[in-house]
């Protein structure tokens, strides 16, 4: 019964989405307030029905209803309850349901928080979101219904893929989807502007925080995915240029360009059509990412079972969305003319350079990711584009970008002078070079050109982003107290500071991890010692252990530095009861300055085991940096400007 309710709720949501897509749009063009108002109620209703469907599926998992095919394929009575819930999005059908729920959730949020948005703009935005919803709900119902029954019901489920039984995987997909789908709001705003032909300052102020928030979710989602890969895949790395990682990274790069371009559009009322184009690109890339993952055309750790019908459907939908919106863009974008001017040396130009670099980086990744498809289509000899390609194109593009990241925030709008810029920044340039030269030497007694450049770049960005805020405060008049002056700095500036500072932390993590990592893979007898990066790892023994739904051999590895016991790590080799695959569960000692990572291999003789040990300095800084960036995005979205405007508007209304 419950699954049928869920199925019914999906159909209801589709009906409401159809109403949401059509009625408000007609209302907006005929200026009919009642019809426009339909947008809000249908968006809220659609969300509630999808929430109901989602709860029904989750309930089926919790009570182990193996008469539902999807549950039988992805769960098991022995699976702990928290993984039974996360199993809802552990495979294709359920993750698609999460996708549409997230989409409806954003629509719901727009309907709730944008009451004072101009009525016709709100109607058009919600209508566009309704259209996207229709596409995905049809897809779900036609090709991937999670509520399909299995008759006769299975006695036991086939269990969740053991790789997905990890805390990182519980929250990684929801965050990532919130990010992907969140850009649909920016997209809807862009399409609404194209339809109405109006793009005033209210438009920018309303769409900017939404784009920021979507970017925040995407940042956290990608970081969590990377963290999961590090914990669970056992390769000791944090980024593999896997097609699906790329699929999420491309909208992130374009989204980063978008939030910067929106800043220019808001402050200077220029880059308007560029901002619209970016909004379309970012969401198209989100859809492309969905297509790449769902269709299985590209092989990766994430590929769910592939089904050509699904791939064709999403490809068709993608073509419709991209083609339709770009046509609309070509037809209408010329209307948006800039009202302000800028010189070659100005903040505008620097942000433009930043945008171009980000988009170019995105394109090189796009080419690398899709290359195997072209090869297939053209019948060329098979090859693969791996990390060496991406490293070779990406790093040279990031260096100028990072350089500009420090110059942009301290440059003036409209017109600046190179000489003055130089005098503002030279002290930081000198400091950065010194830090880059000295810091690696001080910590590791060793430095290379690439390491020094990387660390200098990080220092350069961090110092200048602090200076950008300090500079604003220094300009205060004599009466204003220092603290008050800091409080008066716009939140958006603090958001920038946090995000750019986070980028610096991230770079430090990346540079130190890639420069000073160490590792060993060896056969080790019980009682024998393995030394990596000054740490002694002694295998004390291996004994059987039992988990809720697996049996394991658990190694005990004593870690010492200078004869001082640091920790005992317990890596496991697990066999899950249902799927019977061996799984390596690494054990990690996390530290501020280095992680120690031990994985257990195969037994070689009775008391000799393969052991893999990684030393990964500063690796946690990578995720800490991402977290700071996300925090910066949140702070920026909370800027007074957006709230103050909301208040005055509601008073007027």
């Amino acid at each position, binding site marked *: 019964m419950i699954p049928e309710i869920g199925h019914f709720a999906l159909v209801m949501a589709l009906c409401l989405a159809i109403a949401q897509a059509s009625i408000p749009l007609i209302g907006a063009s005929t200026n009919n307030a009642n019809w426009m108002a339909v947008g809000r109620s249908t968006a809220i209703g659609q969300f509630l029905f999808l929430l109901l469907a989602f709860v029904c599926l989750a309930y089926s998992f919790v009570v182990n209803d193996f008469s539902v095919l999807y549950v039988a394929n992805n769960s098991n009575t022995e699976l702990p309850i928290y993984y039974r819930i996360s199993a809802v999005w552990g495979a294709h059908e359920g993750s698609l349901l999460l996708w549409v729920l997230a989409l409806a959730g954003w629509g719901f949020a727009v309907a709730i928080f944008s009451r004072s948005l101009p009525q016709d703009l709100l109607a058009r935005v919600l209508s566009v979101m309704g259209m996207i919803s229709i596409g995905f709900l049809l897809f779900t119902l036609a090709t991937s219904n999670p509520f399909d029954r299995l008759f006769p019901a299975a006695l036991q489920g086939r269990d969740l893929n053991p790789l997905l039984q990890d805390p990182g995987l519980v929250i990684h997909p929801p965050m990532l989807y919130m990010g992907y789908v969140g850009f649909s709001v920016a997209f809807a705003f862009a399409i609404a502007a194209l339809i109405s032909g109006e793009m005033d300052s209210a438009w920018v102020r309303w769409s900017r925080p939404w784009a920021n928030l979507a970017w925040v979710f995407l940042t956290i989602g990608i970081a969590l995915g990377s963290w999961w890969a590090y914990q669970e895949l056992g390769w000791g790395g944090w980024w593999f240029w896997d097609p699906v990682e790329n699929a999420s990274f491309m909208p992130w790069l374009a989204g980063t360009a978008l939030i910067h371009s929106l800043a220019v559009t808001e402050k200077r009322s220029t880059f308007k059509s560029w901002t619209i184009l970016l909004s379309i690109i970012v969401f198209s890339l989100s859809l492309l990412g969905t297509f790449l993952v769902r269709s299985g055309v590209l092989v990766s750790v994430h590929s769910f079972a592939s089904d050509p019908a699904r791939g064709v459907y999403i490809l068709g939908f993608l073509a419709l969305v991209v083609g339709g919106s770009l046509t609309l863009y070509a037809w209408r974008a010329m209307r948006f003319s800039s009202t302000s001017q800028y010189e070659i040396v100005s903040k505008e130009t620097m942000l433009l350079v930043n945008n*171009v670099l980000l988009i170019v980086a995105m*394109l090189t990744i796009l080419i690398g990711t899709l290359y195997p498809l072209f090869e297939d289509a053209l019948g060329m000899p098979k090859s693969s584009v791996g990390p060496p390609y991406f490293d*070779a*194109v990406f790093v040279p*593009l990031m260096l100028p970008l990072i350089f500009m990241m420090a110059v942009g925030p301290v440059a003036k709008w409209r017109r600046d002078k190179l000489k003055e810029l130089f005098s503002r920044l030279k002290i930081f340039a000198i400091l950065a070079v010194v830090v880059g030269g000295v810091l690696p030497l001080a910590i590791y007694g060793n430095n290379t050109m690439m390491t020094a450049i990387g660390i200098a770049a990080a220092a350069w960005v961090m110092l200048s982003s602090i200076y950008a805020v300090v500079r604003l405060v220094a300009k205060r008049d004599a009466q204003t107290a220092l603290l008050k002056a800091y409080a008066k700095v716009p939140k958006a500036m603090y958001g920038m500071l946090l995000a750019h500072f986070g980028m610096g932390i991230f770079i430090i993590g990346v540079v130190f991890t890639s420069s000073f990592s160490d590792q060993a893979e060896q056969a080790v007898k019980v009682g024998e010692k393995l030394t990596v990066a000054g740490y002694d790892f002694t295998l004390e023994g291996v004994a059987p252990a039992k988990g809720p739904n697996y049996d394991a051999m658990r190694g005990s590895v004593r870690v010492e530095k200078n004869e001082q016991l640091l920790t005992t790590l317990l890596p496991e080799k697990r066999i899950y009861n249902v799927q019977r*695959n061996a799984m390596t569960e690494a054990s990690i000692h996390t530290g501020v300055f280095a992680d120690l990572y031990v994985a257990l291999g*195969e037994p070689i003789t009775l008391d000799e085991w393969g052991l893999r040990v990684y030393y990964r300095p500063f690796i946690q800084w990578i995720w800490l940096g991402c977290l700071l960036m996300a925090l910066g995005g949140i702070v920026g979205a909370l800027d007074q400007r957006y709230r103050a405007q909301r208040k005055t508007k509601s008073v007027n209304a």
Partner: protein
Amino acid sequence: MATKRKQRMIFVIILISGFAAATALALFAFQKNLLYFYSPSQLSSADVTEEQLFRLGGLVVEGSVVRLPDGITTQFGLTDTKGQVQVQYTGLLPDLFREGQGIVAQGKLNADGLFVAQEVLAKHDENYMPPEVAEALKEAGGQHPVSISKTMVE
């Protein structure tokens, strides 16, 4: 009006130089970093030098897996049912590595015709077959590749 034009010029010049740089970078990187994929039977006719890094895919030959005395180095045969290549790998093998399983190895050929792998990839799914391997098997005229792997695994 003049500044307007100037502005547009700035915009276009930055855009074009950015994309030109990207194209150059991508082309250069492609030339240097493309990894070719061969199946064991293709390898005999392929023009591969000792320095060249490439990928080799096929099924691990039943009964061929031998562990060398150091405990951590493994040798095994890789086949596409037509040709066979001897592969050596030092390190812990992935969890799903086993006889009969389809895998992809990345490495170089040494002077004795032994393929020295730097990386061995096997995916976490018992029915999974790397598509390159599946296709290579099909080309070599074997049975339907998935059924091969399944019968061989079970």
